[in-house]
Every structure is written in structure tokens, then in C-alpha cells.
């Protein structure tokens, strides 16, 4: 492998994933056995898992992310209001086990429709999605590891050789810079082994338009970067991918977003997770750096702005109460937003030419990030 700088230990990664799968399936099976033996001994099946209610979501300073507290909820078939969700949960565990043993994957929507073949009724897809989140909590495992994926997909581009592990493609390899539109981050990619890369950093960018601009401007070779389009708030698969790239390839992660309060929060979710996934681990990159656009950059780079809306101000005051926003650049930039009462988009740099963002802004911010 000629351009190899960092070669991952293929066999080890492969084993890790296989080992995880075996472990997850055994957890599912244990759940089934518990329910089976409850019934056999004339007890109503009961399932316990951590509560995801707002009161049980706490900020963990050590891991710098939201985690679930010690409250648990119990679903029991002896309660007439819960027997239906116990049935749904048991079915879902069975269905996920089937998916994994057949090496098939399924979207959230597929799961909702599959239930109908088993006489398990859901009122609507949100109910089905909520049961999937319950099962995640029961076995503390993200749905993606159960081969259940959301529809949303973001993209990746850069010099990274991968080897597929999905059925039918085992051993096939691909280089993620060989397709100019980038590769979709889906089930196949997020479970692939990372074989080889020359990249030295990862740049996650909020918007598809800028992602394409970065590819055109050859940011991947100029800065030796793997570029990821998060397509707005990064989906879990993408966050899982970022985490793996950071951990397995030991690459720093940088984030570029619009210069508004939502952009700031997109960066924060990559760094420290979302409250909605407080029951899950392995989705955060605590060392990731938010390059910008910061509120203070707006004046510094004389960027064209848009006035902040009432919603924007409301969001700022919400985030001001969030423990993760109490210090550093996070806190400071929120204050600047309140001062200037304006926001801007990544495309604002086009005012100074299409390449300004890549040629001027990116290097300056990367330099600044070193001292953060």
C-alpha cells in the first residue's frame, strides 16, 4: 500500500465488529429468554430500562455529554396500558435479531410496515420509532447496530480505502475519493473496515453546497482532509462514523457550520451528543473543534448578514441555560450573537469570491483551532 500513512489493523477492527454483533444478539436472546421464562412461571413479563424522561437526562461533566440518570421505567404486561408496548418491544427484539442473523438492514419506515405482517399494530410510525428507541435503551445499543437505519443520509469524500463487511460485498474495497459527489454514509459504509488513508484531519461541514465546493477546490488534497457533509444536524450514523474515524484513525475533527445559533448547536451535538440520544454512547467526539462561522467572525470578515428572528433569540436563551454552553467559545459566541442580533450563512464568503472560504478563512481558522 504505497501511500499508506496510517494503516489500520484490519483483522482487529473486523473482529471487534463481529464480536459486538455476537454480543448484541446474545443480549436480544437474553431478553427473549427472560420473557419466555416469565410466562412459563405464570408471571406477567416485565422489562426494565433507564427512563428517557427530561427529568432523567443529566449532563455528565466527565464524558462531557448528556447521559441518563438512575431512574428506570418498567413496562409490564400486567398493566393493561403497557401490554401492547411490551408486545411491540418483544416483537422488535425478535425482528432485530432476525435482521442481524440474516445480515439484512431495514429503515425505520420498513420496521413500521414489517410489524403489520406479525399482527403487531402500531398507530403510526412515530409510535414504532419510539419503541425502537425503547429497545435501544433496554440493551444500550444504537439502532444502527441492530441494522435499523433512518432514511436520512449524509456524504463523505476523501482519500480513505475501505473494505465492505456487508453480505455480498465482503472483501470488496473502495477509495472514497473516486466518486466526485462523495459516498453516502449508509449501513454499508458505517460498518466497513477502514483500511488505509493519507488524511490528517476530518472536516465536517453543515451544507451539501459547501461540501461540493470543498471537493472542487480540492480541500481533501490541499489540507489532507476527509470531508463529511452532515446535511444539517448530523444523523447518528454520521456521528458514529465521525467517532470511528476519530478513534480508529486517530484524526482530529473540525466542524464548519452557518454563523447562527443552530449552526453552533450542530457543532455541539457532534462534540457532546444530543439529549435525544442520551441513552447511547459512542456517538460523540469530545475533542472535535468548531471552526466557525463564529458570531465574532461576522464582523471580523465583514460578512453580509441576516437579522436574527424571534425564534433565533429564543433558541439562544435556551442554550444559555444548557450546562455545555457555560464556558469557552460556546458561551462567548452566544453572547456575541445577542450583541450583533445578526447571523450569516457559509455562502456569505462568496461575496469575496468563491474560493475565499477555502483559501483564506479555512487556513486561518485551522491555525486558530490549534490554540484551542
Amino acid at each position: 500500500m504505497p501511500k499508506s500513512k496510517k494503516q489500520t489493523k484490519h483483522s482487529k477492527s473486523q473482529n471487534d465488529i463481529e464480536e459486538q454483533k455476537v454480543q448484541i444478539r446474545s443480549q436480544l436472546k437474553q431478553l427473549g429468554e427472560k420473557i419466555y421464562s416469565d410466562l412459563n412461571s405464570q408471571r406477567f413479563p416485565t422489562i426494565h430500562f433507564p427512563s428517557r424522561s427530561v427529568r432523567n437526562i443529566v449532563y455528565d461533566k466527565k464524558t462531557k455529554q448528556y447521559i441518563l440518570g438512575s431512574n428506570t421505567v418498567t413496562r409490564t404486561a400486567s398493566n393493561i396500558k403497557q401490554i401492547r408496548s411490551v408486545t411491540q418491544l418483544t416483537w422488535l427484539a425478535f425482528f432485530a435479531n432476525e435482521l442481524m442473523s440474516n445480515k439484512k438492514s431495514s429503515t425505520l419506515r420498513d420496521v413500521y410496515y414489517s410489524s403489520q405482517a406479525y399482527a403487531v399494530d402500531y398507530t403510526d410510525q412515530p409510535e414504532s420509532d419510539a419503541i425502537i428507541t425503547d429497545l435501544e435503551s433496554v440493551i444500550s445499543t444504537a439502532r444502527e447496530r441492530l441494522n435499523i437505519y433512518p432514511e436520512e443520509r449524509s456524504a463523505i469524500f476523501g482519500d480513505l480505502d475501505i473494505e465492505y463487511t456487508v453480505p455480498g460485498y465482503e472483501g470488496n474495497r473502495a477509495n472514497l475519493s473516486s466518486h466526485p459527489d462523495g459516498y453516502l454514509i449508509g449501513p454499508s459504509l458505517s460498518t466497513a473496515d477502514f483500511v488505509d488513508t493519507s488524511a490528517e484531519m476530518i472536516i465536517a461541514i453543515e451544507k451539501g453546497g459547501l461540501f461540493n465546493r470543498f471537493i472542487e477546490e480540492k480541500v481533501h488534497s490541499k489540507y489532507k482532509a476527509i470531508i463529511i457533509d452532515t446535511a444539517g444536524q448530523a444523523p447518528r450514523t454520521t456521528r458514529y462514523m465521525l467517532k470511528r474515524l476519530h478513534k480508529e484513525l486517530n484524526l482530529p475533527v473540525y466542524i464548519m457550520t452557518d454563523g447562527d445559533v443552530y449552526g453552533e448547536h450542530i457543532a455541539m451535538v457532534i462534540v457532546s451528543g444530543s439529549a435525544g440520544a442520551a441513552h447511547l454512547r459512542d456517538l460523540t467526539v469530545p475533542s472535535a473543534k468548531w471552526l466557525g462561522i463564529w458570531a465574532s467572525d461576522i464582523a471580523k470578515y465583514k460578512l453580509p448578514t441576516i437579522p436574527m428572528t424571534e425564534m433565533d433569540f429564543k433558541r439562544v436563551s435556551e442554550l444559555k441555560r444548557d450546562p455545555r454552553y457555560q464556558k469557552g467559545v460556546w458561551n462567548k459566541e452566544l453572547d456575541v450573537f445577542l450583541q450583533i442580533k445578526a447571523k450569516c450563512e457559509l455562502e456569505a464568503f462568496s461575496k469575496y469570491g468563491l474560493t475565499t472560504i477555502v483559501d483564506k478563512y479555512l487556513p486561518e481558522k485551522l491555525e486558530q483551532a490549534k490554540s484551542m
Partner: protein
Amino acid sequence: MSKTKTTFSGISPSEFFYRNRDLAGFSNPAKALYTATRELVENSLDACESSEILPNIYVRMTPVVDQLDSPEPRTYKLKVSDNGPGIDPVKAPDAFGRVFYGSKYKLRQARGMFGMGGTMAVLYGQITTSKPVVIYTSTDGKKFHKFTLRIDIQKNAPVIINKEIIEGKGSTGTTVELLLTGDAFRASTKVHDYFLESALVTPYAEITFVDAQGKMFYYPRSTNTLPKPSQETQPHPHGFDFEGMRRLIEDTDDKNLHKLLTNNFHRVGATTSTNFFKFAKIDHTSSPKDLSYENIVKMVDAMHSYESFLPPDSHCLSPLGKDILNAGIMSELSPEFSTIAIRPPSAYSGFPFIVEVGLAYGGNVGSGGVKLFRYANRIPLLYDEGSDIAWQVVKDLAIDKKRAYKIPDNAPLALITHVCSTKVPFKTAGKEFLADRPEIERELKNAVREVLRKLRLHLSRQSSQEAVKRRRDIYTKYLPLIAEFSKDLSGKKNLPNFQPMLKAYLEESEADN
């Protein structure tokens, strides 16, 4: 200043009501048409019931031909026929042509209270159209006596214009035909409500009503049971007034006060009379005619304050009873649940009364909250619901305290209140709402509470039956599914043995109910 000379002259009762027709419910053409219809129908019902005849009543309202195209109000011909006992031809002209024709002192439970309703209708027709009234009546079914008459308002006496005898068709009865100015368009709702609500408490009557558009409404008979006819009774001393006493003394042949009291009053015997006159400090051997004005006042006051008179007894009353009220509720409202409470007799100011309350839930009782049907001596009360004591009671219990009775919001609930008495305490002569006598309020409250308690029992029984069924459905559906999925997930060969627990659970929930 010159003196204005004021002259005083007596007026006849006819003239009094002619001048004050608002009092009797003839204030405008719409209300007059409704009131005239109602008065005549009530006379017919009273006549049939007092002779224990199952009433057949036919009512027709027709616009007169030459006014078909004129705007309301216009002239209508109102015809009311019944199969009652008929009226003695000697008395018939007075019955329709003289206001206040009736017995003087006796009391009975009847729809008509002031003895003037039918005559007022005739009077009103005569005033507005100057046409006479035509009455056909037969007491034997063989001969019908036809009278054409008008009222001499000043003299308060009938003037017979024509009198003939025609061949009968074998059944007794009375038909009244009169012309009057009315507004059928505006009266329509009330008239229809009246027939519908009447049908609810007279399921033993067959009523046919043809309205001004020629549409026929037929209320069939749903029971052959008539309420026990009411009996005339003497007045109770507690309810007797000065004017009554003055007239009684004028008319009486009784030689002394003791006789006067025992002969003319309800439940007053020799002992009671003796004790009473001791209490009143009046010599009971003195002649009634010798009683001074002051002593009449003294005696009436004493009659009101003496507490040892026996309470009035209720044999003279004729409540509808459970069967009739229930038959009416079933045929007009066909509810999913009905119940009836009949209170024991009670009395206010010497007048006996009985309160009956029916409750209907679901079925044809539309949802949207509590509907109240008020009756007094079987007359539907349609106006001024809010001022009626029955409405206050129903509002307090069935609306403001509905949680206590587990009544759901917008419940399909109807309450029927019936107060029967020898004297219903109407606030006006128009028979529209009951005054708030505490004794009547208390009995209404007790009756309404009783039916609401039964409703609560019904609703909770029903909801627990539904709950058992729901539990059964849910557990027989989901528990086998859980068993199957857990079998497949754990890789076992056979289903877990969950059947005994399912069976036990269902039996237990059945037993809890």
C-alpha cells in the same frame, strides 16, 4: 285647578280578561294561537280522563281560504275534537261562554286551574275576528248538539245564535271550532314542542295534529292504562283565604261555626274543630252569619297558624305513576336507560302535592347536555325554564354536581319533572313556571337525587362491563403474541405455558366486576 271627576264601575270577568289578555297568555298572535290550542286540548284531556275514557284527540289548524296569500298574522280556523263524555247541552253554552264557570269551593287536580282557558280562547277569537264559535257535543253518541254562540263581554254571558241537533255517529265527545287571528309561522316551534311534550306524559292518549301547512303529526297511544282519576276534595284550612271564607259564610246553611268547619274543610273532625276554636278563642257555637269582619280575619289567621290540623291527604291527587311515565319516556325518547322516582305525598300551605321525576339516558335523547321537560298537573311548561324551581334543582344536581353522579360531559340525558297538586303554585296565570316553594323544592331535590343515583349505578355498571370486555380483548390478543415472539427470539421449540395465567387473569377480572 278643576277637579277631574272619576267614576268607578264594576266590570265583568269577561271584560277584565278582555282588557288584560296578556295575563292569560294571549299577548300576541303567535302566543295566542299556541295558548288557544293548548287550552282546548287540555280541556279535552281533562274531560276524557275524568270519565276514564282513553283520549282520542284531533287538532287542526287551517288558514281561512281568502287569507291564504296574506302575510302573518292572519285568520286561522282552529278545530279541536275529543271523544270525551260530552257536555250536558243545558250547561254547554255556559261552559264556553262565561268566564269562571265552575265549582266554587271544591279543589281537584286538573290541568285547568282558573276555569277560564277554553272561554278565553273563544273570547280571543271573537275579539279578533268577530266570528262566533261553533260547538258540537254529545253525551250519548246518538245526538250531537250544535251551538253557534258568542260571548256578551259586558254581561259575561253566552249569546246563542243558533242551536240545532244533528245525528251522532255513535261516540260521545266535544268538538270546538273557532276562528282567531294567529301567527302560525312564529307559533310553530312552541306548538310542536307542546304536542311532543304532551305525548311524553299522556302515552294513553292518541293525538293527531294537522298544522297550518297541512302536515300531520300523529302521536299513537302506547299504553292503555289511564291514570287514576283525581277526586274533588275540600280545601285544607291552611290554604284557605279571607275572600273564600267570606263567600263560604255568605252561601252556607250551617248553623254554627263548628258545623261550618267540619262540613266544608278537609280532614277536620269534631275533635280538631273543638281544639281549633279553643286555640282561636272564638265561640264555635255562634252562627257564621253573625261573624264580624274582624272575626273572619281572626279566624282565617288562626286557621293558618294552628299547627294541629291533620296534613292534607293525597287521595285526591292523580300522579302519572311509574308505568305511564315509563311508557311515555319509552315511546317518545326510546332511551338506553330510564328510571323513575315517585316521592311520597307532601303538602305546602294546605295543598297536597306529589313530585314524580323520570330520567332518560341515551337512545333518542340527543347528546349535548341535560334536557329538562317540566310538567305541572300533566301540562308541559314551555316558557321561562330558567325561572322555574325545577330548573334550579336540575342545574344544581345534574349540571353543577355532575361529577358526583359520574355524568359525562354532553351526556345524552333528559329529566322529566312532574308536580301534581290541587293547586300548582304557578307564578302567573299563563301556567309557565313554578314558584320556589321550599316544600316542593325539597321533594324535587330528593326525586332528582334518586334518579341520578340510579343513573350513576347504571353508568358505573356499564363502564365496568366495558372494561372487562376491553381487558378480555386486549389480553387474549397480546399475551399469545408475546409468547410467540419470546419463543422465536429465545430459540425455544415450544410456546411457553402461558394459557393458565391468561385464563386465571380473565376469570379474576370477571369476578371483580
